[in-house]
C-alpha cells in the first residue's frame, strides 16, 4: 500500500489549498489549477478536444468558479464540490501530490522529459 499520506489540509486565502504530507513536503495548489486538472471522465474527454471558439457559456460559468466543499473519499482521495455544481472528480492523494505547484515541484516537472 502507498505509504505517502496527507497529514493536514489548510486553506491558502481564497485562492488555494495547502497540504502537509507525511514525508514533510508542504504542497500548494490553486483552485483554478485543480479544476483545470479535474480527473473526472467528462473533464478528461473535454481536455482532449480542440477548443471550440463558438462555445456558449452556461449561466453557472458567468460567475467566478470556487470550491464549495472538499470531501474525503475513502482512504485514498478527495472530492471537490464546485460552485457550478460539478462534483464528479476524485483527486487521489498521488494525483494531488503530482499537481503540487510549489517552486520545487514545478522545477522538477520542467526538468523531467515528458513521458510518451
Amino acid at each position, binding site marked *: *500500500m*502507498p505509504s505517502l*499520506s*496527507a*497529514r*493536514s*489540509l*489548510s*486553506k491558502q486565502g481564497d485562492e488555494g*489549498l495547502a497540504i502537509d504530507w507525511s514525508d514533510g513536503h508542504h504542497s500548494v495548489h490553486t483552485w483554478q489549477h485543480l479544476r483545470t486538472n479535474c480527473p473526472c471522465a467528462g473533464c478528461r474527454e473535454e481536455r482532449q478536444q480542440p477548443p471550440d471558439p463558438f462555445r456558449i457559456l452556461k449561466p453557472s460559468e458567468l460567475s467566478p468558479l470556487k*470550491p*464549495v*466543499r*472538499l*470531501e*474525503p*473519499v*475513502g*482512504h*485514498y482521495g*478527495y472530492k471537490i464540490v464546485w460552485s457550478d455544481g460539478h462534483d464528479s472528480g476524485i483527486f*487521489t*492523494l498521488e494525483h494531488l501530490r503530482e499537481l503540487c505547484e510549489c517552486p520545487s515541484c514545478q522545477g522538477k516537472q520542467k526538468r523531467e522529459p515528458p513521458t510518451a
Partner: protein
Amino acid sequence: MPPPQEPQKIVLPGVKHVVAVASGKGGVGKSTVATNLALALQMHGRKVGLLDADIYGPSIPIMMGINEVFDPNTTAFPLERYGLKLMSMGFWVKPESAMIWRGPMVHKYLTVFLTQIPWGELDYLVIDLPPGTGDAQLTLTQTAPLSGAVIVTMPQEVSLIDARKGLEMFNQVRVPVLGIVENMSYFVGEDGKRYEIFRHGGGGRKLAEQAGVPFLGDIPIDPRVAESGDLGDPIVHKHPDSPVAKTYLELATAVSREIAAAGVPAPLPGLQL
C-alpha cells in the same frame, strides 16, 4: 490556529471492523468463504454481521437457508440466522428476478445497506463482494470504513491473474489487504491423505509472497461444502468438526490477528471551506 477540520463521514458507528471478502474472478467461492468465515468468527465468540454486496447475484439467502422475500416496509432488517446479522438484495427480490441495473443503482442500494440498516454493535461486519473491480467495490471503498480485505483465489493461474487485479485495486484505494486465501486447494481422501488435485497448488501462497501480504490459509475441497450451502446450513455450522470447518476456524483466527496487526486505518484529514 489551524482552521477547523471537517471529520470524514462515518458510517457503521457500532461496527468495530468491516472486512471485505473479494476476488477478481467469479466462481472461486467468495460467498462460501465469506459465509463460513463469518460463522467461524462468531464461533470464536464475536458479534458478526454478513452483508451480501452482490446485488446482481446474491448467494447469501440460499446459503443461510432464507428462501423467502420480505416486505421492507414491514420487516426489520438485518435478519438473523445462526447468530449472524444478515442483509442481502435477495431478501427484497425473488430469486428468479433479474436485477438489470446500471452502476448508480448498485451504488444506491449498497449505500442504503451500509448506512440505513441498523447493524447495531458488531465486532466484525463481513462483506461478500461480487467478482471484479467495479461499482460495488468502488462504493464500498468510498463509503465504508474498511479495516481490510481478504482475497480469495483458487490454485489455477487463471484465477491468480484476477486475484492480482483485486490486490492492485485495494492497494490503489489504500485498503489494507489482510491476506490471501486459497479455496478448493486440495482434497483430503477417506484415507486421510492430501491430494493436490490441481497439481500446481500453492499459487495463493506464491501470490501472497509476491505481493508481500500474509497467506491466510488453504481450504480443502469437500462435496459437503456445496451440499451444506445448498441446504442453507453452512459447513462450519452443520459439520463443525470436519477438516474444512477446522480450516475456517483457523482462518478466522488468522483474519482477527491480521486485523489487529493492521489497526484501524486513520481517516483522511478534512477541511471546512
